[in-house]
């Protein structure tokens, strides 16, 4: 079973360390002959993807944190704080999960390119702020889009978690004199850590692997994220450079893998909590 699951990765890895010139004719799943081992594909892949990787990080980190944080706040407001009409609002959030990506692609493009003057704003302030590039406006648009799309599912996850928290504990905090925001900061937020791990892993993977929104909003250019660059890498008229493509795929997958490794134990705690 394990062998069955690992063969594709093994094959990818073996291919990725084969010298491209020696690739044709060798079995992709067998280790390359000692003379044909090459780290060239990896270094080439990292070189080619560096801009995409950087853009992806600029996109993923804020979008993940924002959607997690806003989802947690929304869930707190909709679950732990008691007010009329919250079920209705919550239903709107849930409905958000079911809006298909395809249905919003055109409106989304219109929105970011024609309705919101984000481009002109960023282009005018970019020279004044260090590190901010003009093309970053597309990444900002993508961050907002992913955050908005992520909030419903994050709210759902956090709400399930908050429903299990003791009402008496929150009431005790109220009697202790804590305001709604203080209760969130000092009681609810610290108790949400395992759930944040779940949400962060989930959102990180989703956003990192997303190609559809990136193609729609970024389209092409300097702001391209890693998934976009991956599409065309190693493809040329002379043929396909499989070792390079495999190496690039592994490099692009590495961050999500690392996130799983680093947050894995907290993730398990959050899922079972």
């Amino acid at each position, binding site marked *: 079973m394990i062998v069955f699951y690992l063969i594709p990765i093994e094959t990818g890895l073996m291919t990725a360390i084969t010298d491209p010139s020696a690739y044709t004719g060798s079995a992709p799943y067998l280790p390359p002959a000692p003379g044909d081992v090459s780290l060239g594909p990896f270094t080439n892949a990292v070189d080619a993807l560096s801009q995409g990787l950087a853009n992806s990080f600029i996109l993923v980190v804020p979008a993940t944190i924002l959607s997690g944080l806003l989802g947690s706040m929304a869930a707190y407001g909709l679950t732990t704080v008691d007010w009329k009409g919250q079920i209705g609002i919550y239903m709107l959030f849930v409905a958000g999960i079911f809006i298909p990506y395809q249905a919003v692609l055109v409106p989304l493009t219109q929105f970011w390119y024609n309705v919101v003057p984000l481009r002109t704003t960023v282009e005018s302030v970019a020279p004044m702020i260090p590190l901010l590039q003009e093309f970053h406006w597309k990444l900002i648009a993508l961050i907002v889009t992913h955050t908005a799309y992520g909030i419903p599912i994050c709210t759902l996850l956090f709400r399930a978690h908050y429903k299990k928290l*003791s009402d*008496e*504990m929150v*009431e*005790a*905090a*109220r*009697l*202790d*004199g*804590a*305001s709604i925001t*203080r209760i969130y900061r*000092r*009681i609810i937020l*610290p*108790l949400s850590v395992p759930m944040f791990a779940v949400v962060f892993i989930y959102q990180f993977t989703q956003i990192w692997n997303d190609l559809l929104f990136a193609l729609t909003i970024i389209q092409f250019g300097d702001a391209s994220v890693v998934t976009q660059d991956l599409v065309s890498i190693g493809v040329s008229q002379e043929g396909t450079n499989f070792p390079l493509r495999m190496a690039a795929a592994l490099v692009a997958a590495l961050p999500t893998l690392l996130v799983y490794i680093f947050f894995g134990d907290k993730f398990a705690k959050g899922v079972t909590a």
Partner: protein
Amino acid sequence: MAELTLDSITKVFTEDDGNEIVAVDDVDFEIADGEFLVLVGPSGCGKSTTLRMVAGLETITEGEIRLGGRRINDKPPAERNIAMVFQSYALYPHMTVKQNMSFGLEESTDMSDDEIDEIVTDTAEMMGIANLLDRKPDDLSGGQQQRVALGRAIVRDPEAFLMDEPLSNLDAKLRATMRTELQRLQEDLGVTTVYVTHDQTEAMTMGDRIAVLDDGILQQVGTPLECYHTPNNYFVAGFIGEPSMNFFELDVEGDALVGEHFEYPISDQLRGAVSGSDSVTLGIRPEDVEFRADAMPTEPTDFACTVDVVEPTGDANNVYLTFDDDNSDEPRTFIVTVSGMDRVESGDKVVARFPESAIHLFDEFSGEALKNRSLEDVESVDISI
């Protein structure tokens, strides 16, 4: 520290389908400064709702709650200067004991960290939990968590304590210990306390006074012994006391109260009490039934009985008797408590006497007490050391 007044408090919940449920109906009582009042009643009687209204966790539909003479209806919980101990303890699981106890002072006062630290340490020492200050609630036993919850309430130095079944999650032995400890603590601190429980033993043993609540309606407020010996009605009589009072439904017919299996003579003293009723409920506490072995009934208040089951508790025996006149397949039993040293066996023929001075009579329909036991034979015991 202050007196707490509940003035015609009513709570109506409106369900989603528009149904209105009256959880608490026109409840009135006053708790003097430093008094320990136990609010007791069966599950769902509205006692917790009443407490939560005092705490400010539920809105008050009608009526007024005053603490130290000031109306607190519209004040948020934080401004009422009340501390509450919850059934689940409601400790903050991610904080240490020290942080748990400091939280309230940090949120509600301007004290410096040093001052808070000092108060928390002092209280922890008083509660015997000073060695636990750096631990988290999950690492504590139930009894220790209970102490922390109490300590958290005490550091606030509130005008009133509210306790919602704080001992119900403890095992029996610890519960008995904590009962006395809580009482002693409350006496030392002298803080007005409202204590909610469904356990009549806690009610009897802990409170200066108890308030019995049923179905949202206040049945009686009085000292434990008042409620025990002179219950206002059928409900209080049956609820207070363990084992419960025996009840028999009887019809008033001429000179006797006639039941299915026995007749009880109406003496001149009883005449007045039953004159307005067609049928009454006779109640007698298990320990008030006089009981003797193998004798024929000699008085009209004697009844020939057979021992059905004996439950020895060590210090006493709970004896279940059936009337000899009762020939049904499942004869009804009543309970008599006798000394644990008495030898009683199942199947013994005995005589049970219901002394007139010890019986209670309740109107069958309203449940109002028509006659309570006389307290003339209550002896005061002089203890000279």
